[in-house]
C-alpha cells in the first residue's frame, strides 16, 4: 500500500486578475519508507502539493490518499484527526508553540492524542536525546537557537511515530552546518523507523539526501528521479 497517493490534483489560486495554476494535474505515488524531496523554484507548486498531502489545503480537483484512505473529501475535524494520528509536520519557521518548553512542545501532539503522561515523558526524553537536545528540555523556544528549535520541531513530528513526515523548507532558516545536521537526523529517523519523509525544498544540498527527487515547475511534475538507483 502506498504511503501517499495523489491522483490528478489541480489547484488554482487567483492573484489579482490572474489565475495561477499551483497544481496542474499532478499525480504521484510514494511508497512507505521513502525519503522524497519535492524540488521547485518559488511558486512551482511544491508547498501546495505538500499542503494537499497533509490535508492542510483542499485541491480543486483530484484525489489524495494517505495510507490508502482518501482525505480530500473529509471535513475539518476528520482531517485534523488524520493529521494528528498519521502525519508529522515540520515547517519552515514558526514551528513551535512559544509558551511551551521544548519537552512540552514535543509532548503536545501526544497529549492531544491522549497518550498517558508516563509514556509521553519517556518518548519525549528519548527523542530529545536522539535529536541532541538532552539538557535543554525545559527551555522555551525563545531561549533556543534556530537550529535547536528546528530539532525540537523534528522531535515533535516523529515522537508519536507517524507514518508520514511532511517538511516544508525545513532548512531555509538554518546555517549550512545545522542544515546538514538536521538532514542527517531526518535520514537516520527514516532509516531507523521506516518513516516516510516528504520534504519540499529548493536547497540543492537537501536534495542529495533524498532517495527520490521529484522536480516541479509551474504546478507540474517535470522530473521524478530515483536517486538511490542512480
Amino acid at each position, binding site marked *: 500500500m502506498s504511503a501517499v497517493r495523489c491522483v490528478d490534483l489541480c489547484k488554482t489560486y487567483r492573484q489579482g486578475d490572474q489565475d495561477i495554476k499551483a497544481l496542474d494535474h499532478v499525480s504521484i505515488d510514494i511508497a512507505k519508507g521513502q525519503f522524497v524531496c519535492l524540488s521547485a523554484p518559488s511558486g512551482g507548486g511544491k508547498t501546495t502539493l505538500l*499542503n494537499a498531502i*497533509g490535508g*492542510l*489545503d483542499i485541491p480543486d480537483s483530484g484525489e489524495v490518499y494517505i495510507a490508502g484512505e482518501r482525505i480530500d473529501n473529509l471535513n*475539518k*475535524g476528520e482531517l*485534523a*484527526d*488524520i*493529521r*494528528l*494520528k498519521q*502525519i508529522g*509536520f515540520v*515547517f519552515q519557521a*514558526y*514551528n*513551535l*508553540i*512559544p*509558551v*511551551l518548553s521544548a519537552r*512540552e512542545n514535543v509532548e*503536545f*501532539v501526544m*497529549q*492531544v*492524542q*491522549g497518550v*498517558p*503522561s508516563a509514556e509521553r515523558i519517556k518518548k519525549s526524553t528519548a527523542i530529545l536525546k536522539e535529536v541532541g537536545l538532552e539538557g535543554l528540555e525545559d527551555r522555551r523556544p525563545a531561549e533556543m537557537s534556530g537550529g535547536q528549535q528546528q530539532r525540537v520541531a523534528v522531535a*515533535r513530528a516523529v515522537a508519536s511515530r507517524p507514518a508520514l513526515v511532511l517538511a516544508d523548507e525545513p532548512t531555509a532558516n538554518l546555517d549550512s552546518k545545522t542544515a546538514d545536521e538536521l538532514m542527517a537526523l531526518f535520514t537516520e529517523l527514516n532509516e531507523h523507523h521506516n518513516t516516510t519523509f516528504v520534504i519540499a525544498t529548493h536547497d540543492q544540498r537537501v536534495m542529495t539526501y533524498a532517495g527520490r527527487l521529484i522536480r516541479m515547475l509551474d504546478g507540474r511534475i517535470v522530473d521524478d528521479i530515483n536517486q538511490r538507483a542512480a
Partner: protein
Amino acid sequence: MRLFGVLFRLAWRNLWRNHRRTIIMLGAIGVGVWAMIFMTALTRGMVDQMVIDSIAVLPGHVQMHHPDFQDDPSVSNRMLISEADLKKKFDGAGFKAWAGRVRVPAVISSERESRGVTLLGVDPDAERGISFFNYDEVDGRFLVDASDQGIVIGRRLAETLETGIGKRVVLMSQDPDNEIADRGFRVIGLYSANTKAVEEAYAFVGKATVQKMLHIGDTTTEVVFLSDDYRNVEATFQAVMSAMDESVSVRRWYEIDTYLGTMLGVMDGFVLIWIVVIFLALSFGLVNTLVMAVFERVREIGLMLALGMKPGSILGQIIIESMLLLTLGLAAGNFLAWATIVPLQDGIDISVVADGLEMWGVSSMLYPKLYASDMFLATGVVLLLGFLASLSPAWRASRYLPVEAITKV
C-alpha cells in the same frame, strides 16, 4: 481530561504573555465587579433601612384591622373585640411581640399652631418591643402606662407647634357617633425618629385615656404583630389568620405599604440590571483583549490546527483563557468589595444629603449590606455573559484555515 490539561496550560500561559494587557484588564474587571457589589450593597442597605424604618413606623410585620379601616381609618371602623379576648387569643401564641392600639387621625393644637397627626393610643408595656424609638431616649419621659394622662410628640412637631415639655396641647378627633371628641394633654416627652417627617406625624398617648376620650370602651382600631424577620412574615400571618374570622382584615406589611413591598420586590431586578450594565461596559474591554490575543496568535493557532488539534479545542482554549481572566478579576473584585464594605457596615453618615433623602424615607445613616447572594449573582452573571462575549473571538479563531493561518505575517 488530558486535552483539558493542555488547553488549560496553554490558556494560562497565554494569559501572561502580555503581562501589562492582562493586568490592565484584570484591574478593569476587578474594579467593575467591585462597583457591582459595592453599589449593590449600598442600595441593599438603603432599601433595607427604608423597609425596616418604615415597618417600625407602621409598625409591625402583620396588622389586623376592621375590613373598612384601610379606606376610612376612623374610630367608627374599630374592631369590636375586647382587650380580654385579644389577650386570650394572642398571649403565648408565639409572636415575637404584639400590641393592640387605637390609631385615629386627629388635630393637635398648641396655643400657636395646629397640625394634623396620627394619634396612637398605646399600652407602653406592650409597645416596648414594637415602637420605632427607644423609650429611654425620649426627652422628658415616655408614657408610664395605658392610663397615663400625658402626651409624647416628636421633636419636629414640638418645633412646629412651638411647644415643649410641660406645656399643654389639645387633641381633637371624632368619636363613633361622629361627634367631636377633644381633650387637653400635657407634653411629657419628645421623641426622635430617623426622619423629620415621622417626628411630625405621630403623637402617643395612653390607650385607656384615648379609649375614654373617644368613648369606645376597651376596643381598638388595630392590632400589630412582630415576627423575627421582615422577610419572613408568613408564619405570623397564618397564625393570626387562623385565630381570627372574617370580621377582621389581616395583612402583611408589604400589603399595607405597597410602595415598600414593590420596592423590595424590584430590588433583585434592579441589582441584575445594574450588574449587566456594568458588565456591558466591561465586555468591550474583554472582547478587545481576546480579539487582540487571537489576532497576535494566528500563526500559532494555525500551527496547532495543522498538528491535529480540532477547531473545537481551539474554541475551548480561548474560552478557558477568557474564563481564567474573568475568574481572577472576579476574585479581585469580590475581595475588594468585601474589604471595602465590611469596614463601612457600622454606617456611613450621609446627613449632608439627608433632607433630599428624607422624602424617600431614608435616614441619614446608610448601612451597606453585603449579601453572599449578591456576590454569587455578580459572579454568575459575569461568568455567563463573559462566556457569551468570548464566543465570537473564540469562534473566529477556531474557523481559521491552517494553511492560511500558518503563513499569516
